[in-house]
Every structure is written in structure tokens, then in C-alpha cells.
């Protein structure tokens, strides 16, 4: 992508290809933000579409005090929120975050560690086995992608959004904290819980497919 400032200048000048580039670049990023606040993907898509019109109307007023990404995020989130499809979504993201970071939530099933009376308590009793049954290219194939999609859907919503922003869309921790208005600590706890769960789901998946392979060589 062209340098962002140049792209914005081109967009202001009415350059259609700049618009297309920006839309393609940010669409996948904006959709999960909208999806957090509305009931389903179709509505989220409508919200994002509506947001692009608001972005065009507002582009002359965009001042580079905040990053372009943050500015886009705010427009989408405001629209999604006012849509108010689900009443529970009227509360700010930070309240969901507080809820999801409260209480303890072990990264790994406690039963996989040795008990307190053991000579080495809290060390692995069932250690993770390497996922080297297949070459990495194969692990990154569409099957894994389908497992990841399902895994993301299973996550509590704040964890799902933080993980999507960080690991799928490559946002920095700082960007996530700014856009979602959460503390750095909460951001990290949500990320940790989400990543740990997804690792566990992948582990189950590979364990099952290994078992199938050895049953039907």
C-alpha cells in the first residue's frame, strides 16, 4: 500500500483507486469491530458499508492528531453502537473486558499438572506433545484455518475481538488499548486467555487427527 498520508491526500482529491486501496486494506480490520456490537455478520457488513460513506463525508475534517486507523475505528464503532441491535451492546467494550478478565481462568487444564503432594508439584504430568506429525506448510493449510475460525467463534466476545485485532489483523497492543479504551493489563489478560484457549483447541485437533492417522495408516 502507498504511504498512508499520500493515500489520504489522493482520496481527498477524489482518486478512485486510492479509495479502493483503503477499503481493501481496512475492510477485514473494521468488520470484527462492527461485529462486536451487532447481532450478526450481515448487519456488521451493513454497518461497515455505512461507515465508508461517513468516512468519505468526514475525510476533509480528519486531522492527523489521531491515527487514521483509530479514526476509522471510532466511526465504525459509533455507528455499530447506535445501531443498538442488541441492548447489551450499548455498554462500552471496557465493561465486557472487565467481566472477562475477572476470576481465574487457567491457561491449561489444572489436571495436566502434578498435584500438590507430588515431589514436583505444578510440573507437567501430561506434557504437550509436539505437533510435528505434519510439515508446517500442511499445518498452515485450510484445515487448520477452519479449526481457527471455529476456535475464534467459541471465545468470549472481548477475547475474540482482542485476539482478532492483535494476531489476525496485526495491530499493536497500543492500538488495541486506544481503540477499545482498555488498560494495557486488561488487553494482555484478554490476549493471554484467548491465545491459551486457541492453543488448547489446536492441540485437541492435532491429537485427534494423529489418532485417526494411526488408526487408519
Amino acid at each position: 500500500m502507498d504511504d498512508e498520508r499520500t493515500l489520504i491526500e489522493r482520496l481527498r482529491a477524489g482518486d478512485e483507486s486510492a479509495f479502493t486501496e483503503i477499503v481493501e486494506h481496512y475492510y477485514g480490520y473494521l468488520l470484527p469491530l462492527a461485529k462486536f456490537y451487532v447481532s450478526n455478520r450481515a448487519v456488521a457488513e451493513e454497518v461497515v458499508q455505512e461507515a465508508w460513506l461517513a468516512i468519505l463525508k468526514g475525510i476533509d475534517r480528519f486531522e492527523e492528531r489521531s491515527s487514521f486507523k483509530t479514526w476509522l475505528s471510532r466511526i465504525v464503532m459509533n455507528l455499530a453502537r447506535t445501531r443498538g441491535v442488541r441492548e447489551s451492546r450499548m455498554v462500552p467494550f471496557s465493561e465486557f473486558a472487565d467481566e472477562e478478565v475477572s476470576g481465574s481462568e487457567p491457561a491449561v487444564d489444572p489436571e495436566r499438572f502434578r498435584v500438590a503432594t507430588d515431589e514436583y508439584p505444578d510440573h507437567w504430568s501430561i506434557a504437550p506433545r509436539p505437533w510435528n506429525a505434519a510439515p508446517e506448510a500442511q499445518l498452515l493449510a485450510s484445515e487448520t484455518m477452519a479449526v481457527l475460525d471455529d476456535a475464534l467463534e467459541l471465545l468470549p466476545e472481548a477475547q475474540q475481538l482482542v485476539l482478532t485485532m492483535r494476531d489476525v489483523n496485526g495491530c499493536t497492543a497500543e492500538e488495541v488499548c486506544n481503540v477499545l479504551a482498555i488498560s494495557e493489563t486488561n488487553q494482555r489478560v484478554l490476549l493471554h486467555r484467548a491465545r491459551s484457549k486457541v492453543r488448547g483447541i489446536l492441540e485437541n485437533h492435532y491429537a485427534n487427527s494423529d489418532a485417526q492417522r494411526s488408526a487408519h495408516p
Partner: protein
Amino acid sequence: MRIQTRSEARILKEGQNVADAEMTCKELTELITDYLEERLPETERIRFEQHLSICPGCVTYLEQMRFTIKALGVKPRGEIPKATESDLLQAFRSWKNSR
């Protein structure tokens, strides 16, 4: 999976300067994101890495976390539906004409 025998584990344990400071596997699984985010205080990072140097299970765990992150990063992102794309282009053109 490689299970350490007790005697093996004991030798490793004696090799530690402060036995009490040894990190447990459970602790490591909870600190792993702070480690990957480079947010662990120096002393904790050292304990973390010392534990890794004696624990194949935790090395695997760390590899799996890194793989998970990598796999999420190559996951295809949401694509623009074709209809949306053409609607947006139309909207862009009328926005441009109204300026």
C-alpha cells in the same frame, strides 16, 4: 513426550542456584504471554528462560503458542462481498460528483 525420571529431575534441580526460585510449568503457562510481549521483569524473564532450558514440555508449549500466533496471522481476513464493493464504488462516485 519425554517424562523425566525423578533422578534426572533432581540433578537438574540441584543445578539451580536457588531451588525455591525455580519456575513451575503451571506458572510458565500463565506468564507466557507476558514473556512473548516482552513485559516480564528481568528477574522473571531469567527464571522463565532457566525453566525452558530444563523442561522439554514447556519448550513444546512455547513452540505451540508461537505456532498458534503464526497460524492466526496467516488466516485469511474478511473479504469484501462483491455487491458491497460495487455499492461502495457507486457511493464514492456520487460523493466525488457532489464535491
